[in-house]
């Protein structure tokens, strides 16, 4: 019931936004074009609908055997309604092409950020060193150029608030640039279907004032470093050979696993927490999952506690969307 009432309440409260936040230098131009296109659409739709309506009423059949008046086809009329839409289209094309070409080239002064998409997360690496997962911190007012590639399938880096989007291809680099104009937190979506958790391959873009950004660069590192070190270990120990993605079906993806109730082969269900992760790494056979072969080797004696914490921090960071989402 509540579900059914929601739209009504939502509309009454004008809770439905009509426009996504516009937070980049590109957005304004795109929005203006969008507005004009909407105007054209409304104009022609209303025109056609109302002509139909008027004719429907005016020329309705009044008698079964009525004979209508002939109309002939003046060439002029035909030409008019061929040429006018053509002209509209020509103008639109020139306009849109201008915006597109202009937006195609990143300014020289851009900061370059390296992006790697993989099923189903975003890895981002700043020039200054910090690496982030599913989130990107950028300063306001500075052009950012993303150089992107994919580890597996095609993804697409999409930030609606910036009106930018570009496919992220395996085996190739593509690039994308934007310059944020408003501080705030904006959605990052994967906009190219990439498999099971395509809809969870999402994140956030944090646009910060330059001073905040400088602080983040300087201080943020400490709080993030554990996870980053953990990530390095994760590939150093070859964890990512198996846990890289769902698609290899050998091992479960660890994205979002932290804090989620997990059903085990024994039938019991436990919430995945730090200790369970540790247990899984040291004695994998004690936490067998259904649907998977007991492939995971034990790392007993190889991984010390410090490293264990780093790994845990990393695995936690993989599941951090919920926290940020709210």
């Amino acid at each position: 019931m509540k579900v059914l009432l929601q739209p009504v309440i939502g509309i009454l409260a004008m809770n439905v936004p009509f426009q996504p936040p516009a937070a980049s230098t590109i957005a304004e131009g795109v929005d203006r074009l969008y507005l004009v296109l909407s105007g054209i659409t409304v104009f022609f739709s209303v025109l056609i609908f109302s002509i139909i309506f008027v004719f429907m009423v005016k020329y309705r059949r009044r008698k079964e055997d009525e004979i209508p008046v002939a109309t002939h086809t003046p060439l002029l009329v035909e030409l008019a309604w061929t040429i006018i839409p053509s002209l509209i289209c020509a103008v639109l094309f020139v306009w849109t092409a201008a915006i597109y070409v202009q937006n195609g080239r990143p300014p020289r002064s851009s900061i370059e950020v390296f992006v790697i998409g993989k099923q189903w997360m975003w890895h981002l690496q700043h020039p200054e060193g910090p690496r982030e997962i599913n989130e990107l911190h950028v300063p306001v007012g500075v052009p950012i150029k993303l150089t992107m590639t994919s580890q597996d399938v095609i993804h697409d880096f999409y930030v609606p608030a910036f009106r930018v989007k570009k496919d992220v291809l395996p085996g190739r680099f593509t690039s994308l640039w934007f310059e944020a104009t408003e501080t705030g937190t904006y959605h990052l979506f994967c906009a190219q279907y990439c498999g099971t958790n395509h809809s969870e391959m999402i994140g956030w873009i944090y646009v910060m004032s330059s001073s905040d950004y400088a602080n983040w660069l300087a201080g943020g590192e400490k709080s993030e470093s554990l996870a980053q070190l953990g990530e390095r270990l994760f590939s150093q120990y070859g964890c990512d050979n198996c846990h890289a993605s769902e698609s290899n079906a050998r091992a479960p993806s660890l994205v979002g696993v932290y804090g989620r109730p997990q059903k085990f082969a024994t039938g019991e269900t436990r919430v995945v927490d730090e200790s369970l992760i540790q247990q899984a790494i040291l004695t994998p056979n004690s936490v067998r999952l259904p649907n998977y072969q007991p492939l995971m080797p034990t790392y007993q004696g190889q991984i010390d506690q410090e490293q264990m914490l780093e790994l845990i921090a990393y695995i936690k960071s993989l599941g951090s969307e919920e926290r940020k989402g709210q």
Partner: protein
Amino acid sequence: MSTEAPAEPAVNYLNASYGIKSWLLTLDHKRIGLLYLATITLMFVVGGLAATLMRLHLVEPQGALFEPETYNKMFSSHGIIMVFFFLIPSIPATLGNFCIPLMIGARDVAFPRLNLMSWYLFVTGCAFVLYDTISGGVDTGWTFYPPYSSLYAQSHVVAAALGIFIAGFSSILTGLNFIVTIHKMRAPGMTWFRLPLFIWALYATSLIFVLGTPVIAVTVFLLGLERLLHVGIFDPAVGGDPLLFQHMFWFYSHPAVYIMILPGMGVISELITAFSRKKIFGYSFVAFSSLSIAVISFIVWGHHMFVTGQALYAGLVFSVLSFLVAIPSAVKVFNWTATLYRGSISYEAPMLYALGFIGLFTIGGLTGLFLASLATDVHLNGTYFIVAHFHYIMVGGAVMAYLGGIHFWWPKICGRLYPDMWARISAAIIFIGFNLTFFPQFMLGYLGMPRRYAVYAPEFQVLNVLSSAGASILGIGYVIPLVYLIWSMRYGPIAGPNPWKAKGLEWTIPSPPPTENFEEIPIVTEDAYNYPAIEPHAYPDSQGVASV
């Protein structure tokens, strides 16, 4: 003309022979049309059920019903079934098969055996896809982009690809048959410019069938091989290029969207003229716009790839060509509207569908301009805006035209009338439900909600719930015709040869027609849509309507 009392002819194509075998081995184009009708309806119900479940799932941001994996399989099956197994064959294979020979004054299509074979191919294709859906599904989206589809997807991609491959040959044979039939089987006096516009539209459609479909066949063939043998045709790790697949896929699949709309446009030309008792406005413009749509449609496919990192100039060329393809569509819309001018308009159900088509197609088509336009497409690509765009054209346009056509020719097909009141009510329900379902999706898309999302951000919920509410209304709207049309086959009042008093050769013969269609091949002496009309100067001060 047709003043004889409505009576069913004693022997017609329906009762000429009995038994399953007489249907499954029939060479009669009319029966084959009905075989298609049954198959396609089944596929529509399956695809529609998937859509209904999807909409239910999307009522809640975190997903109400399924795991993401299941949801992905739903929209993939929905897309594949609706496109390849419902909409592409819908009008051509059912109404086209039934009507072409009747409308051009022929006894059958040129190659009846090929015609039957193409139905069997189609059924085989359907069987593969249904098997696929039941046995675990396919989760690649209807677009099958590699390397996901070729190397990563765990689902039954090959069975689906095989189904499409086989159904493709069915399309090719249908197209071939139609082209030859239209060229070679016209009755004496039926010149090109006396052809009904439905025939022109099907001719243009057939061109796309014949020239486009082989390419999708090769493409899915390569995809299947890549998947089975891992040989690296689209796999970048071994030198392949996944975007090459996209080029080859869209080389067919863009023209294919005009396969879906052109026949519908043809139907609309018939409906508008019949129910306003007018000659079509600008016959040759409407006819040639069909052909030019068919031709231009082949050179715009790159507009699906604007954000793939396509070369700048290629992007510009594809954009300008996409704008170009809008012009002939505009010409059609204006000509249909102008046909109503000074007509004698009545509002039987088919006409309501036709008018609905014009409006919704206009909206759908104009939103296509947002996508043809590079700068806005960058934002809208991959969002619900696109979902809304194509449902406006394919559901609001093509399905409406299909339903309108079915209602229009139904009395010819089975010789009986359906209850017109119910038909009008359901047309209205469909119109309302449709807009409620898909209009919010335009807004969702602009707000940035990506498509193919099993879970979504909470701020999109309100619009999604609206859309789902609309979908349930729409679903009800589709059930009603299903019921009364089946009912009317047995219990409807006898229709007589020409219940609408429409022009066209198909209305000159009994309903249902005899197996041989025409006792004597007619000789055509007049233009299409030659409805009686009064020359305007005869009544200088008339309000546009006069009676005799």
